[in-house]
């Protein structure tokens, strides 16, 4: 299976776009993204994780020039709405034991998918995946399979936030959402991706900012696409893999200079 990458998106505090990230230095003071499609009422109810996911979705749609209200979506999050789940736990154990209805429906793993669908009027199929260290690869696989099943475009969004105390933060200091618009159609493509499989290669080095956040394993892929490089990229952080590491081959179509800080 192969696909063309037509658009990218990224949001993490200090980095409001893929080009911000690729410039290697924090450029923005924004602590939360605009996620303009959410608007007022939905925007006030949306969680921080949902906001960054919706922002990444919008960026990829806009970059790819696909209609955000009509594109199927695949979301991937290892821990889902973790902050909201901890707020619920705090209320259950330390508070009055009640749960706010909004907080409850905000706690589902598909909250970002739901808010995005409602905000943009998108009735296309959408799924939300969770899993282990290979989550980014599994999300790309799902995206490729959605194209194989007949969709012209699909946007894959991977998003996670650091764990809160008392749970182990795994060295992650910041949330991250990244997105790719995959297309069956080569028109306006930035890169071609193919050959998604496990190979005997080194896993992705952990970035100090994101520690063990599985979704950060997507960053080398985004950088390779943005750079227009021809490269085989790993899609998993080191997790004691014994059966190889998921990889994908990237072949740039439209080179754009990018010097990411990978130290």
């Amino acid at each position, binding site marked *: *299976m192969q696909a063309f990458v037509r658009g990218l998106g990224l949001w993490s505090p200090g980095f409001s776009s893929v080009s911000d990230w690729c410039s290697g230095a924090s450029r923005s003071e924004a602590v939360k993204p605009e996620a303009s499609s959410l608007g007022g009422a939905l925007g006030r109810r949306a969680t921080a994780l949902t906001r960054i996911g919706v922002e990444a979705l919008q960026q990829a749609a806009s970059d790819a020039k696909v209609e955000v209200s009509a594109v199927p979506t695949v979301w991937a*999050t*290892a*821990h*889902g709405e973790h902050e909201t*789940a*901890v707020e*619920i*736990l*705090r209320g*259950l*154990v*330390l508070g009055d*034991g*009640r*749960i*706010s*209805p909004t907080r*409850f*429906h*905000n*706690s*589902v*793993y*598909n*909250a970002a*998918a*739901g*808010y995005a*669908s*409602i905000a*943009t*009027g*998108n*009735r*296309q*199929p*959408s*799924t*939300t*995946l*969770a*899993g*282990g260290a*290979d989550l980014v690869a*599994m999300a790309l*696989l*799902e995206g*490729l*399979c*959605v194209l*194989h*099943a007949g969709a012209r475009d699909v946007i894959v969004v991977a998003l996670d936030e650091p*764990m809160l105390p*008392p*749970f*182990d933060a*795994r060295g992650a200091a910041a949330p991250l959402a990244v997105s790719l618009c995959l297309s069956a159609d080569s028109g306006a493509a930035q890169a071609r991706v193919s050959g998604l499989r496990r190979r005997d290669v080194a896993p992705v080095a952990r970035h100090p900012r994101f520690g*063990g956040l599985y979704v950060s394993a997507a960053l080398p892929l985004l950088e390779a696409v943005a750079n227009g490089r021809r490269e085989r990229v790993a899609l998993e952080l080191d997790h004691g893999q014994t*059966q190889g590491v998921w990889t994908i081959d990237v072949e740039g179509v439209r080179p754009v200079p990018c010097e990411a800080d990978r130290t």
Partner: protein
Amino acid sequence: MSAERSGSRRIGYPITAWSAVNALGVSTAQVLDALHAGRSGLSAAPPATPFATVCGAVRGVLEPLIGDLQRYDFRNNRIARRAVEGIEPEVQAAVERWGAGRVGLAIGSSTAAMDETERAYETHARTGSLPRDFDVQQHASPEGLLHVIRTVTGIAGPGVVVSTACSSSAKAFGTAKRWLAADVVDAVLVGGADSLCQTTLRGFHALALVASEPARPFSAQRCGINIGEGAAFALVERRGTGPRLLGVGESADAHHMSSPDPQGHGARHAMLAALDEAGLSGADVDHVNAHGTGTRLNDAMEAEAIRAVLGAEARALTVSTKGYTGHLLGAAGVTEAVFALDALVTGCIPESLGADPVDPQIAIAIAIRAAQMPLRVVLSNSFAFGGSNVSLVFGEPV
């Protein structure tokens, strides 16, 4: 694709084995016996529940996970392991037939091990530390559930947890079907698992949806939902013997996070998409296993959508099995798929427990009594928070 298509009618993929564990029993045989007998599994809610309700709790002994899986020894994983053991020979045969790397795993779960995380947080509040070895990321998580089922089965192909709330494990069939169609795998173990926890019980209560009495979907006397727990699995293979997964239809409401679109646009679209993929029309459907939660909004919307898709004159009997098990949330889709597959094979449509007297506004045929008849095509619906809809079509081989 020619292997999966015959003329205009698609032949889909055979489901060669299935299993379920829930309030009706700790083996598939116990579960289906209770279903056929019209016996509810609903019982008292967990003691920590601060309001009156009944729940679909798994009763009976669940063996602990030991050895390498000791750190995964949570109720959710115990229930899932118990359920997958019910089809262990068939899963082993598939792993040998296709190779471990050509068998995939797609499990639906909405809470993973939230009950255990609640206990761990409470322990931390009381003692200042989490229970020894407790790791929410690796063990009490979707990742942990995947690891347990991989370890028990030896499956080494792609593996995901689908987490779209109450449609999770029905949507896992969609992932399975796409993987098979793209030739990524030759078989997929589809599953679902969720265990009772205070977060979901109190969360649904906060939405004023929880019934104090046993749920009565489609009844004039319906009073809301009961929460249940359980796990179920279905083995979908490229070739084999069994009723077939003919179509999966997915859609989004784009309406509200926790209420269905009263117009039922998304529900209708999911059913029509599933039938279209199967090469069938609404008139071909012999039986519907509804989402049927027992809330006024869901039941009215869903019945209207079923009527629109099947036709006003349709005589296909619709059942909600949530009066037996409660709402299994992330495990509901595959559990109800197992009930639909059993109906196809046995011709037994269970009584829609508690539906009698049916709400006069529900304009479809509800199975107020159990029925026995040959069934060729069965449809099963699941709807979820975020407006996530999925409809599955199963049928006998043509």
